């Protein structure tokens, strides 16, 4: 019989780590215990994107959106909501009296979003191929196999105007076309799932929530260019995504949607998973191909581009997860439909992982051309703890910062480059006034220095030198000439590095220097860190007129740097102080100040 209620439990990594699996188990058990097991379907689905409020449980058809659910809430959800039909108000996203019934469409977080890539995330059970099929799944493959030629498939992508979502924004149809035209018996299709930018998790969530969309797209590409073998290169630290991919592949093989003679069309295609050890440089396509071949992941000079000479020297189309996930929709709905979304420069949507000092961290998918202000303030809910917005970092370690002045720029590939940043894979880290911009630049530089493969000198030596100078500046030993040196090393790295990792590594430094020159100068000339982040440039002191002599800070100080009798003004001994900030947190009278 039909189910009367559907309980969707988020099964993304973020919610799983908050015990979503236990919630799922408990809900299934409670349904049995309370005798409604055959009327209610409990489904573990992909990421809802609203990670800030996880774990998330959605109950249909009432469309009740429960947030921050714990395993012990399962009993109440079944007893109240399912049996008695009363929503469990305390767990609803919007608890206010006037709006007891918070529907998903009422939540601001979802209002400006448009979901193509994440179309099935949070709706279907990713471990059940039937649910994917029911949502127009493998319809694009049917079309591609039986109704379209390779040229027509590529033409459709051309009409759509899809550009690669991995970062560079190269037109996808051109890549495919190069490989199609290359004469060779053996060709390959590769999915780049080596998502490595700090704070980015769009691709992981897509694979976890909708693995079949990628499998379907890769098979379509195989048909278009004449390849019979695909590889998904995914980092081993994404165990859940790998697990779901393996299930999806097994189901697709069983249904004859992968393997020999797919759907009786005579076309053969199969996919293998290759695990990466988590090196950032392996997200670079030529290094990734090296790694698949079993070699050390180091970039190779281009040209020849992989599309012509890639894996084992054969023509290889390599696209990232998000690009793949767009393709079945483009084939089903047509390139024309897709090209109406977004901006002339960049069609379609983009998924961003919104993190940092933002109220609603999460995964958002918006049409290209949405402004940063809409993403940060309308969808993201603004800055957490009522602090002031400082900047957004996009493009990960290859990108730059965007300041208040550029918040109203409609986002697409071109516009982000024009304002000194880049699209990248879609990580978006929001910073507030408490973040030190020099420290942020240093963080990214440290990351790229760690992840540099060491093959070419500009990246290996240049990155280290930049890092050393930033270290010097944040320690209070900077000299004015350092700024010029940073710029000239950065330029050299941009020109001389072999791959995008080295070419873009100086971006976080150069971009922050451009927009926050004042802050760099404060560190160098005044030996001050305006946000109080750089420990060596900070002094803690006690204001004599505010100190009541309560001795709270004296007792709290771990190194005994504060002296003072009861009811007498306390003093911090600067030579002993380790700048841990414990006194600042302890003082109830605002007498401790940091400069």
């Amino acid at each position, binding site marked *: 019989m039909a189910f009367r209620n559907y309980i969707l439990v988020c099964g993304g990594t973020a919610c799983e780590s908050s015990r979503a699996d236990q919630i799922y188990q408990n809900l299934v058990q409670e349904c049995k215990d309370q005798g409604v097991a055959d009327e209610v379907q409990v489904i573990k689905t992909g990421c809802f994107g609203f990670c800030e409020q996880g774990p998330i449980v959605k109950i249909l058809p009432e469309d009740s959106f429960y947030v921050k659910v714990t395993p012990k809430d399962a009993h109440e959800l079944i007893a109240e909501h399912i049996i008695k039909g009363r929503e469990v108000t305390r767990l609803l996203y919007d608890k206010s009296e006037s709006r007891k019934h918070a529907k998903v469409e009422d939540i601001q977080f979802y209002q400006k979003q448009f979901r193509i890539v994440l179309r099935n995330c949070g709706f279907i059970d990713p471990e059940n191929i039937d649910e994917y099929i*029911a949502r127009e799944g493998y319809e694009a493959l049917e079309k591609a196999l039986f109704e379209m030629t390779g040229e027509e498939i590529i033409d459709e992508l051309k009409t759509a105007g899809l550009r690669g979502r991995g970062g560079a924004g190269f037109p996808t149809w051109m890549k495919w076309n190069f490989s199609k035209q290359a004469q060779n018996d053996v060709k390959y299709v590769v999915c780049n799932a080596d998502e490595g930018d700090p704070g980015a998790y769009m691709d992981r969530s897509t694979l976890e929530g909708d693995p079949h969309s990628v499998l379907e797209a890769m098979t379509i590409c195989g048909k278009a260019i004449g390849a019979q073998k695909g590889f998904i290169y995914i980092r081993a630290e994404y165990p859940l995504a790998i697990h779901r991919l393996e299930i999806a592949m097994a189901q697709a093989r069983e249904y004859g949607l992968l393997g020999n003679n797919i759907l009786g069309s005579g076309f053969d295609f199969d996919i293998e998973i290759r695990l990466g050890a988590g090196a950032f440089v392996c997200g670079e396509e030529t290094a990734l191909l090296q790694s698949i071949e079993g070699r050390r992941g180091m970039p190779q000079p281009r040209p020849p581009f992989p599309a012509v000479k890639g894996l084992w020297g054969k023509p290889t189309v390599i696209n990232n997860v998000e690009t793949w996930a767009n393709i079945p929709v483009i084939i089903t709905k047509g390139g024309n439909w897709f090209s109406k979304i977004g901006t002339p420069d960049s069609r379609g949507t983009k998924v961003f992982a919104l993190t940092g000092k933002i109220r609603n961290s999460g995964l958002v998918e918006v049409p290209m051309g949405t402004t940063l202000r809409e993403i940060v303030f309308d969808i993201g809910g603004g800055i957490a703890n009522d602090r002031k917005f400082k900047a957004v970092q996009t493009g990960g370690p290859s990108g730059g910062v965007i300041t208040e002045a550029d918040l109203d720029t409609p986002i697409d590939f071109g516009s982000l480059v024009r304002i000194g940043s880049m699209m990248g894979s879609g990580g978006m880290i929001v910073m507030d006034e408490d973040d030190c911009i020099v420290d942020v630049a240093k963080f990214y530089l440290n990351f790229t220095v760690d992840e540099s493969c060491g093959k070419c000198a500009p990246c290996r030596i240049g990155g280290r030198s930049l890092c050393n100078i930033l270290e010097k500046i944040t320690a209070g030993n900077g000299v004015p000439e350092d700024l010029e040196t940073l710029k000239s090393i950065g330029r050299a790295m941009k020109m001389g590095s072999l791959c995008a990792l080295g070419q873009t590594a100086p971006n976080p430094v150069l971009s922050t220097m451009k927009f926050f020159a004042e802050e760099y100068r404060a560190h160098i000339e005044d030996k001050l860190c305006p946000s109080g982040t750089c420990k060596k440039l900070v002094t803690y002191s006690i204001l004599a007129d505010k100190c009541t002599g309560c001795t709270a800070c004296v007792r709290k100080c771990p190194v005994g740097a504060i002296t003072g009798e009861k009811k007498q003004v306390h003093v911090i001994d600067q030579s002993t102080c380790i700048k841990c900030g414990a006194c600042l947190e302890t003082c109830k009278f605002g007498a401790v100040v940091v400069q």
Partner: protein
Amino acid sequence: MAKMTLEELRKLRNEKQSALQKRDIEGKDSRIVIGMGTCGIAAGAKVVLDTFLAALDEYKLEDVSVTQTGCMGLCYVEPTIEVMVPGMPNTIYGNVDAQTARKIVEQHIIGKQLVTDHLFDRPAADIIQKDGGR
């Protein structure tokens, strides 16, 4: 399942599509709300609920969602249900049993005619404004 042909895939999709559409609430304009307080359940609301689901399935009415709510305050005519269909007034029915439920689907939802012998009024006007008073 063994490997599929194109026809089999299409057949499977059609079968599964309607199952999954029941989960989707978008575009479902009509709604049946069943009063499932203790009084309603005791009077047989559960059977009514099952009947509605079965009947909707039977007639392949995919744009109607069935939800439940607490006691509507008409305990003397339980089980009570409310039916909302676009272009028709929101209607409360009382004394609904399995047979009546089927009649409501056939007459009200499909035929757009009220089932007059089970009509009841709301016990009191709703004091909560639709927009939450804002």
